[in-house]
């Protein structure tokens, strides 16, 4: 609420309201961690209950998963560069890297949807077994987050083009960055505890 500006800080931290928004988003990410932890817990409990359906080894294609992983990890890197460019007040660079991020995120989503379609064609649907129910809901929740993130970032890009870099737009971009990195962290857990563990089980 306070309009007092502390110009010594990075743009996104300059107003009190911005600092509160960023802290609030960290708390929200805390809630998101609990949400995903619960989904991982559910997968941990149900992940080997196949009910006669396919197992992880039967359906996972590790090559495609590796491509997805590298797309998403790279997108986190480009997101970081985008915020770095924002701190240097380079709007052009910032937006360019942000667009790269979204393209990589889009690529990830494309691969994930393709993967899901492939599974369904193999007869591995959400309704097949408890393993697949928990698998699809865990990954689907992550995928939904990525989708929402892409839509969100497009709105941000429009606002930055309209308004340039202000404390408000900078804060919004910074918070989006936190969100995007968080999704990457979740994916690392999915990659480890769903895919890799599934293949060695």
């Amino acid at each position, binding site marked *: 609420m306070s309009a007092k500006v502390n110009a010594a800080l990075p743009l996104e931290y300059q107003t009190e309201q911005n600092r509160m928004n960023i802290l609030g988003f960290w*708390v929200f990410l805390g809630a998101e961690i609990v949400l995903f932890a619960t989904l991982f817990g559910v997968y941990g409990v149900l992940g080997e209950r196949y009910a006669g359906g396919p197992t992880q080894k039967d359906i996972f294609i590790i090559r495609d998963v590796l491509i997805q992983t590298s797309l998403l990890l790279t997108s986190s890197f480009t997101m970081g560069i985008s915020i770095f460019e924002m701190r240097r007040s380079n709007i052009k660079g910032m937006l360019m890297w942000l667009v790269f991020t979204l393209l990589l995120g889009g690529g990830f989503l494309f691969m994930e949807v393709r993967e899901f379609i492939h599974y369904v064609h193999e007869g591995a649907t959400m309704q097949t077994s408890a393993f697949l129910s928990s698998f699809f809901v865990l990954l689907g929740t992550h995928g939904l987050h990525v989708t929402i993130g892409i839509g969100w970032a497009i709105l941000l890009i429009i606002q930055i083009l309209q308004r340039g870099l202000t404390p408000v737009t900078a804060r919004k971009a910074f918070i989006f960055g936190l969100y995007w990195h968080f999704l990457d962290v979740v994916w690392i857990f999915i990659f480890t505890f769903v895919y890799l563990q599934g293949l060695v089980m």
Partner: protein
Amino acid sequence: MGIKWDEFFVTGDPLIFASQIGIALTLIGALAGITYFKKWNYLWTEWLTTVDHKKIGIMYILMGVLMFVRGGIDGLMMKGQTAVPENGFLNAQHYNEVFTTHGVIMILFVAMPLLIGLMNFVIPLQIGARDVAFPQLNALSFWLTFSGAMLFNISFIIGGSPDAGWTSYFPLAGKEFSPGIGNNYYAVALQIAGAGTLMTGINFVVTVLKMRTKGMTLMKMPMFTWTSFITSIIIVASFPIFTVALALMTFDRTFGTHFFTISGGGMDMLWANLFWLWGHPEVYIVVLPAFGMLSDIISTFARKTLYGYKSMVISIVMISVLSMLVWVHHFFTMGNSAAVNSFFSITTMAIAIPTGVKVFNWLFTMRKGRIKFTTAMLWALAFVPNFVIGGVTGVMLAMAAADYQYHNTLFLVAHFHYVLIPGVVFPIFAGLYFWWPKMFGYMLNERIGKWNFWLFVVGFNVTFMPMFFLGLDGAVRRAYTYSAETGFGPLMMISAIGSIILAAGFAALVYNIYWSARYADRNIGNDPWDARTLEWATATPVQHYNFASLPEVTKLDAFWHMKKNDQLQPLKEDEVEEIHLPSNTWIPIYMGVVFGISGFLLVFEWTIAAAIAAIGIFAGLAFRSFDYDEGFHVHKDEILETEGIWRKGANKGVKNHVS
């Protein structure tokens, strides 16, 4: 397709038919009344689009009181049914629906809105702030809670109510055994309301951390602020679990997945675990803010600083940690190993330690205090012995081996009513009597208040004390009737009579609100109770910007010390600055509406229609993203004028109704 069109409205029960007509007439009456008195504009600009934490708090409280009526009628119906053996007032199905909605409504749409309403109103004032950290988000929280509550409430006239108990255990709550759409209401309505609550939690964590006024360190915060802060942390840590559990329930019921089903490798106990992983912390979410209110009220009316402030803080932190570690005690009898049961027995009993510390602190606060027996204080006094009965029977239930005897009997039902009514409802009533003047500028009548108090407390004990003995005699909970040979009849009848006294007590509160609104004295000054915390340092009712200049704090009980040491500063005109406040917004109520519509369609498993309606949700988010409204400034002249009016009568010659 979840339902046939001819099943859309619930038909065939005269009770429900009467309510359908009643609801239709009330709606028409309300709409016509607002139109006739030309209040639409007032309603829209002053309430429906407001982002003022005080008005949002009042709307929460209003909703909580209304829902109390609904939940209370459910309770009375149950008591009416079980008053005599082999009664035919409600059939088994109807009874199932009534105890389910009673539980859900009382916890989620009565206790939580009343507490969050009081938190909303009081916390920013107690910490000397002008609003919460995210005022628009706060409005969204309210409208989502309201939307969820309304969706849940229409279930009994449209489509059928949930009937698997407020815990909705699988496999009973699954499609196989509950094929109707009733339980979809449970899954969807609570999801929407839960999202609102989660945002409240985030909001208050940041508000308390970031918006305290100058000098108010964490250890100088009033106890209600402390408990609300810890409660908010528990909300953030536990509500996402419920979000997931409800989402999986929706998937199981609507999309045929196998999380909790018997077939397909699902695991029904997973639901019980997830539910109580949220459900037990939820108990502390409702009880901790109540503890905080009691602490402030007791220290005000004992006219002493709270005894053992530090140990109070340590206790609530300990309770919050332990609250996450006891969930299995809700199903000791459902096939855990002895080691698991032992572990959760011990953690459960351990909660009695910090709670006991708190009880003794309250007693020591009162010791040698010059106690003023106001209605608010009476509630706090009645709380102690009644809550101890609930607590001690809780320790009995905590012993896993003994729990095999108590489990699923009315003993348990009596226990948790002895925890939740003295532990949550008494403090809420105390809080309403205490803060009412701050909210509305007049006090609730003390004489009617005494009626309210005595009827309610006596009625409560007459209702629930017999249930301990019924439970020990083997009366099971959730049974719609019993035979005369069981011998339960007399105690059941006493319990039913008690519930009528209890209802009369609540009616006295409602009458008190009506009476006081019409006749109570408006000239009460800003500090009618001679209170201790900052909310009493500003005008009554509170001006919309809360404080003309933000107060500075040096001690606990800041306002008390200001009064005693003559440090109440008159407002210096040249130091008054323009105050920046956020603007009203239509987005939160719009979000409540689209969430409600989309949820309603999802309840009926019209998934495509629900998805189309959900586009409206994303449209709302996009509107919010492009909303760069910077709020408005309150001008100096307006501030000086407002302050001049209330400060004239403040702190001297104040009419004090109590001492």
